[in-house]
């Protein structure tokens, strides 16, 4: 707990979803940065430089920069930062995501508490 506030980067093209997730995290006392696509997320990553956790959708509009690409790029910059991927598609399995460098994959539809618990888990570690 070197820092006062943990900072979470939320990447999702669905604005409503990003907003409600951010509200919930903020309620838990976390700092939140929102990006609507992978390119924007990398830009925000560089701007803030103190991101503690990344939550990203896999399928997102944007040139060659969906959740998987983002994970690879983030992993290049920081090998230990927890990355949680969210997907609606069944082909993105847990082993596949881990191979790509993500810590956890959450399939839609999900319980909101599940996300919050995972955030707690990775930040407290």
């Amino acid at each position: 707990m070197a820092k006062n506030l943990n900072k979470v980067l939320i990447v999702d093209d669905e604005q409503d979803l990003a907003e409600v997730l951010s509200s919930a995290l903020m309620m838990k006392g976390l700092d939140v940065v929102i990006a609507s696509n992978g390119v924007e997320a990398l830009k925000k990553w560089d701007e803030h430089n103190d991101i503690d956790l990344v939550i990203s959708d896999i399928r997102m509009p944007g040139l060659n920069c969906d959740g998987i690409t983002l994970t690879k790029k983030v992993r290049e910059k920081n090998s230990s930062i927890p990355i949680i991927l969210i997907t609606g598609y069944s082909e993105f399995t847990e082993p596949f995501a881990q191979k790509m460098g993500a810590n956890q994959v959450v399939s839609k539809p999900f319980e909101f508490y599940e996300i919050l618990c995972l955030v707690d888990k990775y930040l407290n570690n």
Partner: protein
Amino acid sequence: MYQRSYLSRGWFFTFILFLGLGIIGLITLQLKQSFLDNIRLSESRSFQKATFLIEEKVNSYIHGLQGMSGIHLVNNGTISPRLVRDYAVYRHFFTNFPGALGFGFVRRVEKKSLDTYLANKRKDFKTFNIRSITQKTYPDHFIIEVIEPIETNAVALGLDVGSEIKRREAAELSMRTGKPALTAPIDLVQNKKAGKGFLFFLPLYNKTQTPETINEREKSIIGWSYTPIQSSGLIDFLRNSVDEQLVLQLYDSSGELIIKNDQAVDKRYRDNWFETTISVGGRQWLIKGAVLKSFNVSMINLATILFFLFFGFVYTWFIYRFRKVVKKSEESEIKNQQMESWQSAILNGADYAIISTLPNGIITTFNKAAERMTGYQATELIGEFSPAIFHDLDEVKQKLRYLSHEHNIELTDLFDAFIFNPTKDGTETQEWTYLNKNGSRIPVKLCVTPLKDASDEIIGYLGVAEDISQIKKMEATIETQRLAMISGAKMSALGEMAAGVAHEINNPLAIISGRLTVMRMMLEDNKLEKENIEEGLSKINETCFRISKIVKGLRAFSRDSGTDPMEETTVGKILEDTLELCRERLKNHLIDLTVEGDLSATLNCRSVEISQVLMNLISNSMDAIDHLTVKWINIKVISLNNKLMITVTDSGNGIPQEVAEKMMDPFFTTKQLGKGTGLGLSISKGIIEAHGGRLSYKISEGHTQFVIEF
């Protein structure tokens, strides 16, 4: 076949020819025979007539003699020459008794009384003398006492006819039997050179009645009425009385020839002699008769034979000519027969019902296929009924009502339903239903044409009907299969959409779940204000609405739409419903979809089906352009002059030729196994065509474009 038939006919003609000649020959023979028979019959009659005449004539001598006897009776046993002479005159002697030389009386005188008799006789007739014919002596004499006319018979007067055996036998026979008796042929004393003659005796007794016994007759005999007959006189009579062609010969029972009426050479006589025996004066006469070989008869025979021979030649010639004519007519007959059997074979071999009628509808031709389709026999209908009898009457009446309404006239004859338009326009093809006798309904496609003669007058109608029940069945099957395929393809499309749709729903669900979680956290921290609640609820409501819209679209899409009614729908509405289901996928594939044009244009359609086609085209485009850098799809609606055109263009650069040729075929696919059914385009095409439209592919400004036209 053809040649053999000729050969056999050749033999047939030869046979006929010889048969004809044979028959002619037989007829000739028969006629000749019949002719000869007739001749023979007439000869026979002629002979019988002659026989009868002879018999009658001889009997007339008896009558003459009986008359003589009567004179004797009335004159008390004495016979004077004057009386006999008077009698002869009275009886027209020489006319009525041809051949008779005179009438006379022969007296029986016993030997012992001869001198007394002679003395008495010489009292009246001083020169009366008795002469014997032979030297033979008998116990009595039969002396010719009277013979008239004495002028020609003087030589016989006083002759003792009893002195000669032939004359004596006849006289004695007459005496004993009491009946007339003839002598055998003798030479008469009057004229020895005139040929044979004979004497005819009739006995005279001294009693009125002929005595009962021979003994009494011998005792009471006085003498005989008699007449000498010269056979040549009979011949003269016969010459005049019988057929001059007839040759007669009379033989005495002694075998001696009495007379013959012709001296002609024997070879001129016919071979066939008639013979008969008559009984005259106690003798049996054999009459032989024959007719001269007549020149006429041979001429007639010859003429007959010549005639028939001539006839035979003419007949033969005719047969020969006839054979030629027949040969020719036979050829054309064979041709006609072939033509007829061809026509009959065509008529009955055709799988189409061929029915012709008179102008009034009465059936004149009804082929086998027609019998099969209707269950009626040609013989039941021809000349009796109109085709309406085997039609579904409701259809016929409906057509009649339609025609009446259309042309504003009153049509009542059912047959008009079939011929009204053909009469006017030349021909009409329409689907009808035949009611088969067995109760089944046979859908047919009937083409009716008027039949016209050379002067363009309608002389009847021709109906050719095709049984389309198999086609109908196939159409029904195809329709079922099409619906099944549409359904299958739809399910397949649904499967493809499922992932996208899941995504569409997942996000709203996550949003709702998130809102609820945030609100609960606020509640737990006692920070939940009214405005937070309102904001959260409105977001949740909004998101729920989003979900329900997706679900509605999905439900409509999956429903069986094949029997939906056609409804007037705007193209905009159809597009909206369609795009709702693929927006998420488009977004995920980073495809820019634009819609332009007259979205308010309306279309009478099954909107779900049109939506399905659009979905199929969009899906194909998405797959086709996924690998491209520039990804866009453009949908344009153009409404022009009652025509509606929807184009779906994507950023692709066209479809390879070989693929384009086959892509509308069922089950053709370029996608990986399991990725596509290959039914999409073919079914889309089917749907559009079922709506009376056309689905085509082209390249527009270098880009792939599908065009739906209505």
